């Protein structure tokens, strides 16, 4: 069969919108994150059937179902191992991972470090609302100290995990932060994260409309967010990024915190390289069978 070159029409944000309608609480920050993801994917231009979108459990983990990409709403905290498996088995796919702060930094916390050090080419978007919203408002790993919830009636005594500092410390080569209060900016950082070769991380401060106080809602974020460009941040400087990351919970910086100017080869690329090399030395199957049958 002869191959006829087919020109792909430019994809639009609505091409990534599934027929399933979101059932988040009205006013949830995740609505804006979803819009930013649609626009980022349109910017990337890969058709939905070339994208695998994996999530764990939680409100934000519903996101793959709201897109036309292949989706896997998996097990709590296990989105990253599944996504890594998909990327290794099907390296041609664009692999995205989504989840909440509980999914990523509590039950799945151990996986984040290993996904980073393996440097598999995938993009991890965490919708950090600092609470377990789906289960009716318990403390999550990023809940601020003093937060009153159903599990901390007198206020949390624990210090929160700092997701930005965590991933930077483990060596992530792309780290950004956004908010649904600036959907254009968020779409932009998600698109940059997807284009970055290797493990890329986007922390989205996506407030829980039901359990977070008004001063943390999207409207309030608009007044206090600060773009990293406005403070003259050099996103190629990891130490400067770590310095700014320490203000997590106090200052809402948006934009690219760190982007490795010379990223290392990805694990999936290294695996393919090794497979190609070993294939040259591989013993043909017939000979292996012969050896077993001792002909």
């Amino acid at each position, binding site marked *: 069969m002869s191959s006829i070159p087919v020109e792909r029409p*430019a994809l639009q944000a609505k091409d990534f919108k599934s027929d399933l309608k979101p059932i988040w609480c009205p*006013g949830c*920050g995740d609505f804006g994150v979803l819009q930013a993801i649609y*626009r980022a994917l349109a910017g990337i231009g890969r058709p939905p059937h070339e994208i695998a979108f994996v999530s764990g459990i939680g409100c934000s983990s519903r996101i793959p179902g709201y897109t036309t990409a292949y989706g896997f709403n998996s097990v709590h905290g296990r989105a990253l191992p599944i996504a890594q498996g998909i990327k290794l088995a099907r390296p041609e796919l664009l692999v995205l991972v989504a989840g909440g702060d509980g999914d990523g930094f509590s039950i799945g916390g151990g996986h984040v470090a290993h996904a980073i050090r393996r440097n598999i080419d995938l993009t991890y978007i965490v919708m950090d609302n600092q609470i377990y919203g789906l289960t009716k408002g318990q403390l999550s790993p990023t809940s601020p100290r003093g937060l009153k*919830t159903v599990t901390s009636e007198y206020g949390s005594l624990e210090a929160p995990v700092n997701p930005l500092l965590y991933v930077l410390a483990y060596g992530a080569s792309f780290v950004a932060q956004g908010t*649904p209060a600036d959907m*254009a900016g968020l779409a932009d950082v998600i*698109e940059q994260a997807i284009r970055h070769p290797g493990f890329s991380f986007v922390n989205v401060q996506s407030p829980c409309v039901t359990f977070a106080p008004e001063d943390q809602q*999207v*409207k309030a974020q608009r007044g206090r967010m600060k773009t990293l460009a406005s403070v003259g941040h050099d996103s190629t400087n990891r130490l400067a990024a770590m310095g700014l990351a320490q203000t997590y919970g106090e200052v809402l910086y948006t934009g690219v915190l760190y982007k490795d100017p010379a990223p290392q080869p990805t694990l999936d690329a290294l695996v393919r390289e090794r497979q190609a090399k070993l294939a040259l030395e591989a013993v043909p199957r017939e000979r292996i069978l012969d050896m077993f049958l001792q002909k």
Partner: protein
Amino acid sequence: MVPRTIDFATLSLQDALDLAILVEEEAKERYDELAHQMELHHNQDVGGFFRFMVKIEGVHEGRLEHRRTELFGAAPRRVRREMLFDVEAPDYDDVRANTTPRQALEVALRAEKKAHEFFTRALAAVKDPAVQALFAELCEDEVEHAGLVEQQLSRLPPDPVIKAEDVEDDPVAH
């Protein structure tokens, strides 16, 4: 990367019409989403109002599309939805499950005013006289729409005084 900003200085009439159509399309889709959210939370009155707004924005979109087809036929569109974010679409965070009809009208009013601001700012940057005329017309339309919503608001009785803690989930266990 897809451009996420619009260069108003170089905008042609065809692009400007397409942009205006996309603005209405975005608003129509957002009202549809908000209507679904309200229906899901058994807030039928507000859901019904947002459904009405879907129709209104659809009518505006249809009028602009008709004009665009008359002037430029099926010439391919050069502007993209990805360049627009919430021009006339109400903000997601402007609604809650217990939004009242009065608050819903206020949401629509803010959306109309936001669109007016957008076209006013754009007007200052536009160079093409035909585009200037279109944007000036759209600005006037938005003022008229805002006036209509204000009229509806004036006919509604004030919301009953309900304390937030009566309707919101309490974050603290008892």
